[in-house]
């Protein structure tokens, strides 16, 4: 399943990119960028959310993972400093890796953002607040410390700062669109949740994202729960559907970038992914993009339901679709003591 399903290809491509890099880039990617700065967002606020929602199994796993991460972090930072101290020529090389891996990491973590803002029934803090605490404050201090080695903040940090207002909403919208093709359930936020999102995202939620949910609700009320027709265009680098929007101008305009390499066109979702492609096109032209593979006929079919059932091994009708009426919803209600 990990090799096949369209959204699992996102973390898969991230880690395969790191594993197929050299040992120093791997270390920078995983031990430094991912574990030192970014996974704090997964293992601290998200685990607090799990605890707050009574999911102690996830908390046990998360804290155990975090103690392992702590070792990688210590190692990662020391080796990065060592590399920088060895020779000044290493500085631009390390900087380029930092730029690449921070961007790839923020794209990957948009999934955690949507889990925090949309999937937790009881919310502890918004993704934006977590981002400010763990990336901007903690990560910012780290980069100040590295400034003496000639390292600056990751490229496109200013875009990342604007995206914190948007990415969780955009990511959950992808899964709501393709809730028929996901191995978990999706739903429309309740009125209370939408008010919470308005309060946490005063600059963006009511203006850009509440209208999406209102249309979704209207369609659902008309008996036409929205599941997007067709298949989405994917980014050649991060492999996420091309959903991210322009942060410099109109945030309702999808951000389309492309490159031509050896006569072939490749599409990317952002300046960050575009630059990563341009630096090492030989790597990313090999991407196994799930949508394109389906359209090539390599994933069974021809219809989507047989692909989900026979190629993804989903239990179609139980694993996918809206939470409403699902076995998961029944279990949840039973667990919470509500009438089924």
């Amino acid at each position, binding site marked *: 399943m990990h090799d096949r399903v369209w959204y699992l290809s996102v973390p898969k491509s991230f880690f395969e990119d790191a594993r197929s890099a050299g040992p120093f880039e791997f270390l920078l990617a995983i031990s430094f960028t991912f574990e030192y700065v970014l996974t704090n967002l997964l293992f601290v606020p998200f685990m607090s959310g799990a605890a707050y929602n009574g999911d102690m199994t996830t908390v046990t796993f998360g804290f155990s993972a975090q103690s392992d991460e702590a070792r990688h972090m210590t190692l990662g930072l020391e080796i990065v400093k060592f590399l920088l101290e060895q020779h000044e020529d290493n500085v631009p090389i390390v900087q380029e890796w930092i730029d690449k891996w921070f961007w790839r990491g923020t794209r990957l973590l948009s999934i955690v953002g949507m889990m925090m803002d949309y999937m937790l029934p009881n919310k502890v803090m918004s993704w934006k607040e977590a981002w400010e605490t763990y990336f901007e404050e903690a990560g910012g201090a780290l980069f100040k410390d590295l400034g003496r080695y000639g390292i600056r903040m990751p490229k496109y940090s200013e875009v990342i700062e604007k995206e914190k207002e948007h990415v969780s909403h955009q990511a959950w919208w992808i899964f709501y669109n*393709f809730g028929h093709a996901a191995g978990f359930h999706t739903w429309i936020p309740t009125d209370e949740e939408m008010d919470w999102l308005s309060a946490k995202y005063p600059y963006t939620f009511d203006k*850009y994202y509440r209208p999406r949910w209102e249309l979704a609700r209207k369609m659902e009320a008309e008996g036409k729960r929205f599941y997007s027709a067709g298949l989405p*265009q994917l980014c050649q680098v991060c492999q996420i559907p091309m959903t991210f929007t322009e942060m410099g101008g109109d945030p309702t305009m999808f951000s*389309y970038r492309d490159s031509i390499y050896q006569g*072939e066109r490749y*599409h990317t979702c952002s300046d960050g992914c575009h630059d990563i492609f341009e630096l090492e096109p030989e790597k990313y032209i090999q991407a196994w993009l799930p949508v*394109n593979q389906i359209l090539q006929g390599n994933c069974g079919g021809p219809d989507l339901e047989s692909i989900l059932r026979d190629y993804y091994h989903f239990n179609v009708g139980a694993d996918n679709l809206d939470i409403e009426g699902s076995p998961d919803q029944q279990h949840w209600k039973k667990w919470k003591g509500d009438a089924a």
Partner: protein
Amino acid sequence: MTVRAIQDHYQFEPRDTQHHYGDNMLLYIGWDHHTLYCAAHAFVVSPQQTLQDLIDQQIQAGFHQHPDFEQLDWSTVQFVLNHEPLQTDFSKTLAELGFDHKSLLRFVSPELKGYQGAHV
């Protein structure tokens, strides 16, 4: 810039070249300011079909769910092919209009701004 590899000739076949799609090609289509659809759609199309065929077949199938769709006036719609304005001639084939493999076609409906005018 290029990849720094431990082997010479770090070159591999791209996974998505046109020949993987028989006589057809991939085409990405997006409707600007209609974010009900979370991203542009990916379609397999024939270079020999006309722009009118594209509207009647793939675009109809891919975008009909949007409440604005039935109000679309195709005579006022602007097309943008690979970032360049496209001269609309519905009877010409995609090949004649300059579509190639993995082109991106965006269409803009000036009068329709999405649900509640909010670009949804």
